[in-house]
């Protein structure tokens, strides 16, 4: 990574930490660990299932909220505070600024998720007293959640490159919700005919397929996640977010900042 990109990445990360965003994860971890014994009271045999579903869903939801709400301010804040002009007056290219911001937020989310994962496994250990081999599958689910963050952060940054923070948040969240129905959209496309079919196919391929990245239900039931799914989901998330960042760069390159 070039030094300018690394500097923007680290600065974005530091800024997010200074925003006390990471405090939420400490609260999350403490709450989850503290409530773990309560899950055992709910029902015999269900405590682990509920803990896994609640824990992984919370990691995913917290992360997506952070990705959207920090992501929308990444560009607009710099313009508002006029710090963007200082940055771009130095030998920093616009694509480096956008990509650095993206990587900085991703770093924040990965650290956030790492802390939440520690809290989650601590809660799991308290509730079940031991780890089993199937629990390794939980890490795959968490890895997929991080891949979701890759996509959500990229689309948030894409919208914030041309829209106001409020609209960026609405667009990004709406696209994420539509993405969770991407498979239904493709099923609909298969049943439709004529122009509707082609429009539905185009929409289905264009929206981010985040539903494939959600395997919480499977790992909660100790189902095996195939290596191929891990490989192709990784490729998909990396390439889709790269495409979204490329569009953000193209828009930002043309944006009149005067």
């Amino acid at each position, binding site marked *: 990574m070039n030094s300018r990109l690394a500097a923007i990445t680290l600065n974005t990360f530091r800024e997010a930490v200074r925003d006390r965003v990471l405090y939420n994860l400490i609260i999350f971890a403490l709450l989850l660990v503290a409530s773990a014994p309560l899950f055992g009271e709910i029902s015999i045999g269900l405590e682990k299932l509920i803990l896994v579903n609640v824990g992984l869903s919370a990691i995913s939801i917290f992360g997506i909220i952070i990705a959207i709400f920090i992501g929308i301010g990444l560009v607009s804040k710099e313009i508002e505070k006029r710090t963007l002009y200082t940055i771009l007056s130095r030998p920093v290219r616009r694509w480096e600024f956008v990509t650095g911001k993206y990587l900085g937020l991703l770093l924040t989310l990965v650290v956030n998720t790492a802390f939440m994962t520690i809290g989650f496994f601590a809660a799991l250990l308290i509730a079940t007293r031991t780890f089993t081999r199937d629990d390794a599958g939980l890490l795959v689910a968490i890895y997929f959640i991080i891949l979701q963050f890759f996509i959500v952060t990229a689309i948030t940054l894409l919208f914030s490159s041309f829209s106001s923070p409020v609209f960026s948040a609405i667009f990004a969240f709406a696209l994420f919700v539509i993405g969770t129905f991407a498979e239904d959209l493709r099923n609909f496309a298969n049943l439709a005919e004529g122009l509707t079919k082609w429009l539905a196919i185009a929409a289905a391929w264009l929206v981010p397929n985040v539903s494939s990245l959600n395997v919480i239900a499977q790992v909660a039931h100790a189902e095996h996640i195939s290596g191929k799914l891990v490989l*192709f989901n990784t490729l998909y998330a990396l390439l889709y977010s790269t495409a979204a960042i490329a569009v953000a760069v193209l828009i930002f*390159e043309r944006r009149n900042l005067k």
Partner: protein
Amino acid sequence: MKPRSNSTIVAVAVLVLAFVGALLSLSQVDQVKGKQATLEEVLYIPSGKTLKKLSLGYNSLLADIYWTRAVQYFGHKHQEEELHYELLNPLLDITTDLDPHLIIAYEFGSIFLSQPSPAGAGEPDKAVALVEKGIRANPDYWRLYFTLGYIHYFDRKDYKAAREAFQTGSEKPGAYFWMKVMAAEMAQHAGETSFAEEIWKRLYESTQDQMVKDNAQQHLTALSVEKLIDELNKRVEFFRQKTGQLPSSWYDLIRAGLLRGIPIDTAKNPLKLMPDGSIQVADPAKIPFLTKGVPPGWKKPKPHEPQ
């Protein structure tokens, strides 16, 4: 070249390559997930009541989504002519828990459930339970009684229950007059082809839905071919009794004055007289729902298979 136009070209190239790569990866994900579909099939939330609480008041929207899923699930299994539709009943149950007034889910869902496999799930008892659930939630909707009577008549062969359903339905507001007629005729003509024909005719005339109309029309066509085969069987038997041997072709019956010409089915194909005296249609695929005159062991070709 300016550095900015350089980065534009790179960004466009990255965009195109990454997007195409993402689509290719996604198609691979679909293939891998296809193999895991059976695992996912069992992972739906089994309780509609729980889903209703989780839906934050948007339960009718969620019901529509679940109904769409039920239709897609049935459509996929139906197309593949699979024998098991394990998730159909839970999906319909969730749909109708979420929106007890979604009439279409009871009317069509119960038919999906009751039809014998591979056309349907072959679970008429569950279909009856679904329609009865619909009647409890919508007691004045007479068409649900018609659907209930239909399932009892065709799939459960319980003519008494069918008569009761038609009778009760006929007393509901807005019920067509023929519901009462059907309830009355059921006592005498239950089990006869003519009565089945009557039900399909009534359904054909009363429905606004083109799919239901087409389905009724296909059943009527199949019944008319079956009636023709029954009549021809009688003439073959008459010939056998008169001559002491089976006719070797339709011409034997024509020469004996028992037929005017070679009989043809509704698809305009001549019927085949087999050496054992049985009668078969030339192309059963063109006459869906036919139960007589189908060659032994014949299976409807799947859409992607050559006929």
